[in-house]
C-alpha cells in the first residue's frame, strides 16, 4: 500500500456562507470536501451555535498543496474582513492520490 502526501485544508467559519464556500472550493479545483457542524470562540466573540446566525461549520478539503494555497489566498481576500473565519493547513497521506 503506497501512501502519497497531500494537504488537508481546514476552514472554520460562519454557517451562513456554507453555500458560497462550497462553490468557491469547486471553482478553485477541489475534488471533494467534508463539512461538520461546529461552534467555538475567537476574535469575533463566542459563536456557540445556539442560534442560526452564530453557528459555525468546519470544512475540510484534501487536495494538492497548490490548490490549497489558491483557496486560502481567495478566502483571505474575500471573507477575512467581514466574517468570523480561521483556516489552516496540515499534511496528510492518502492511498489514491489521483482522487485529490
Amino acid at each position, binding site marked *: 500500500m503506497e501512501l502519497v502526501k497531500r494537504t488537508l485544508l481546514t476552514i472554520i467559519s*460562519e454557517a*451562513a*456562507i456554507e453555500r*458560497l464556500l462550497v462553490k468557491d472550493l469547486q471553482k478553485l479545483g477541489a475534488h471533494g470536501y467534508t463539512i461538520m457542524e461546529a461552534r467555538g470562540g475567537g476574535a469575533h466573540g463566542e459563536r456557540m*451555535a*445556539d*442560534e*442560526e*446566525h452564530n453557528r459555525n461549520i468546519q470544512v475540510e478539503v484534501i487536495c494538492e498543496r497548490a490548490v490549497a494555497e489558491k483557496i486560502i489566498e481567495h478566502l483571505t481576500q474575500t471573507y477575512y474582513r*467581514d*466574517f468570523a473565519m480561521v483556516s489552516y493547513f496540515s499534511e496528510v497521506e492518502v492511498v489514491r492520490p489521483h482522487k485529490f
Partner: protein
Amino acid sequence: MVDSLLEPVVLFFILGFLTNFLKVELRLPEAIYETLSIYLLVGIGIKGGLQLSKIHDISTVIIPILGTIALGITIPFVAYFILRQLGRFGPADAAAIAAHYGSVSAVTFAVVQTYLDRLKIPYDGFMTLLVVVLEIPAIAVGILIARLRASKEKPNYRQLAHEVFLNKSTYLLFGGLIIGYAAGAERIGPVGVVFVDLFKGFLALFLLEMGIVASRRLGDLRKVGLFLVAFGIGMPMLSALLGIVVGLVCGLSLGGTAILATLAASASYIAAPAAMRIAVPQANPTYYLTASLGITFPFNVIFGIPLYYWLTQLIFHL
C-alpha cells in the same frame, strides 16, 4: 396592562426571558425551534386562508394591499434616515437595520391576534395576506439601499427577487393561505385541529424559546450603544403610528388597524438577518440582531401590543 401580562403566551415569553438573568441553562433544541417556526407560519397561513375563504367581495382587499405596500416601502426609508442622521450609523449598518424594521415578525402577528381574540375584538379577514405583503418589499428595499449606498457591486436583481418572494417564511405563509383557502372549513377537519386549534399552545412553547433567545441578546446591549436601544423602542412606536394612519385611510376595522399597527411596529428576526448577512456582509450582525430580537421583540410582546391597541382606539374615537 397587567391583564395582558397574565395572558399565558406572554407568561411563557417572560418565563424564557428571565432565564438569562437567573442564569438558568435552558434552551429548546434547534430542531424544535425550526419545526415550530414552520408549524406557526403554516398555521398562521391556514387560519388566514380559512378567513379569506369567507370574504365575498375579494376586491375589498385591493386598497389595503396597496396601502400596506406603501407602508412597507416607507418604513425602511424612514428607519434608514433616522439611523444615518440621528444615529450616525454607516450606510451598511443603517440599511441592514432598516430592512429588519421594514419587515415583519410573524410571531408578533400571532400574539396580537391572540390578544384581540381574547378581547373578542373582530378584525378584517384578509390580515394574513397583509403580513405576506408587508414582508416582501421591506427586505428588498433594505437590500437595495445597501447595494446602492454601501457597495460597488450592481445588485443581482434575479437573486434579489428570489430571496424576497421565495424565502422560507413567505413561502410557508403563502402556502398555508392557499391550503386554508382551497380546503375551506369543511375539508380542513383534523388538520385544522392541529394547525389552528392547538396553535396557541405551540405558540406558547415557541415564545418560551423566543424569550430565552431574546434575553441572551441583551448581553450585547452594552456593545450597541444607547441610541440603538432608544431606536429599538422608538422606531416601533413611530411605525405603529404610520400603520394606524394607513389602516384608517384604507378603511380597515378597528381590530384590523391595531393589527396593521403591530405589524408595522414588528421587526423581522428570521428572514432579514439571514438575507442581510449575505447581502450586506459589512454590516455588523450584533446591531440588527440585538435591536430587533433583544429590544423590539420583547417590547412589542409585553408592552407594545396593548399600547398600539390603545392608540388605535384613541385615534378611532377622535
